[in-house]
């Protein structure tokens, strides 16, 4: 059962307008059968301080990452997570979160690995909801467990591994980290913890487009014309390009993946979640330092 789409004019200029909902739309549709609202934040306690009524919390560390192997949870763990969150295979999921929906986009990308059909983002996330003075509650819902099927994760379409990136060299790469990380001055985002990369710099030929450029000051996505100016004019992407985006651990780049694929309509976009913490520590992979993209080495 698909909950009706948000027909806001702003979204219609995007390639997949059905992937976004506005704060007005969400407020009106809270409690609609078939709709599950998910909060996914960087700060693991933010949900507890207050969240949208009825929203369930899904945490990237605790729920989406495998606790042992550096990977996402498997089909069984995902099914169990969906079941306890009250999600059925045909639920409409709306995800929102802090920091311009950074982690919400990451959750949406992981849901997409499992082929969950109808998953959307709340444009502007927590910041937009709060700026409009909308209500939060501290009451956590207790959803009825569902019978979510065990679905194998499909890593072949929207996820790239290191070897895929090596094979991709020569085609567009977007490095969504800060300019300091891109040039090699540092290996972590300014003010972020060291997550371990032995070498600094970027993958040869990658264009640097920090992920946050896709969001306006109010936390909402920029319009189509502005996105075109950033990614087509600025980073040189063109129709038909196959693109790989990466950051440090794959979270910021899932935001850019959402923008390139769902908002701008690039068909073949993959997120390299190994990202710099893998590439920057891998043996004998090419690295370029400095502010220029650099050339792809001959193979």
């Amino acid at each position, binding site marked *: 059962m698909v909950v009706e789409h948000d027909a806001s004019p702003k979204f219609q200029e995007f390639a997949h307008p059905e992937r976004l909902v506005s704060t007005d739309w969400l407020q009106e549709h809270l409690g609609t059968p078939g709709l599950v609202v998910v909060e996914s934040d960087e700060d693991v306690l933010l949900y507890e301080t207050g969240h949208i009524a009825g929203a369930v919390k899904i945490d990237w560390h605790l729920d989406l990452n495998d606790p042992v192997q550096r990977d996402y949870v498997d089909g069984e763990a995902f099914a169990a997570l969906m079941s306890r969150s009250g999600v059925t295979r045909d639920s409409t999921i709306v995800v929102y979160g802090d920091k311009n929906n950074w982690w919400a986009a990451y959750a949406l990308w992981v849901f997409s690995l499992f082929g969950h059909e109808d998953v959307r983002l709340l444009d502007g996330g927590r910041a937009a909801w709060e700026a409009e003075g909308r209500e939060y509650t501290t009451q956590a819902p207790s959803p009825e467990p569902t019978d979510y099927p065990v679905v194998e994760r499909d890593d072949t379409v929207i996820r790239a591994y290191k070897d895929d990136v090596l094979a991709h060299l020569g085609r567009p790469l977007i490095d969504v980290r800060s300019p300091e990380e891109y040039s090699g001055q540092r290996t972590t985002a300014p*003010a972020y913890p060291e997550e371990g990369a032995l070498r600094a710099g970027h993958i040869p030929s990658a264009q640097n487009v920090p992920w946050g450029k896709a969001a306006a000051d109010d936390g909402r996505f920029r319009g189509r014309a502005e996105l075109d100016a950033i990614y087509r004019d600025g980073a040189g992407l063109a129709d038909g390009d196959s693109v790989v985006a990466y950051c440090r651990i794959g979270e910021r780049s899932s935001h850019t993946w959402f923008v390139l694929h769902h908002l701008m309509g690039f068909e073949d976009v993959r997120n390299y979640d190994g990202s710099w913490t893998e590439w920057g520590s891998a043996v004998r992979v090419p690295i370029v330092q400095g502010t220029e993209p650099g050339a792809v080495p001959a193979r």
Partner: protein
Amino acid sequence: MTAVADTAAGAGDLPASLAEIRDEFLALEVRDRLQLLLEFSNELPALPAEYEGHPDLLERVEECQSPVFIFVEVVDGVVAMHATAPREAPTTRGFASILAQGLTGLTAQQVLRDVPDDYPQTIGLVEAVSPLRVRGMTALLGRAKRQIAEKTAQAGTAGAPGASGA
């Protein structure tokens, strides 16, 4: 350390303030530990008025995911830790509040000798908030201890005799 005699009972043991906090967390189910962390977060006191207008006195903890600033005082060998972090970073506020409550009132010597660097890993938060996030608290503690060591060195002697523990 110096030859200054330490008369506090239980030298070498985790100070009672921090042991209590640890036991409180460990007594709870993993899910409920987040609620307790939120309580700590809400209890983080405002900065003393004299530091409000002095951002230069505060040290930013770069390892934390959200802007958090700390300032540690050592007066007559007794520690007072202050911290500030934004409302929208409740986890970081909670970490800072645990340390501010646990360290304030201890002697500098107690903190440097009896508070292990891995205290944050021992209070049951690794399972509740993830190992990566707890690293931010470890960094907070590390910086607090470094400030205390520096200030103690400046003052000449550590753990002034007669200074009371918590």
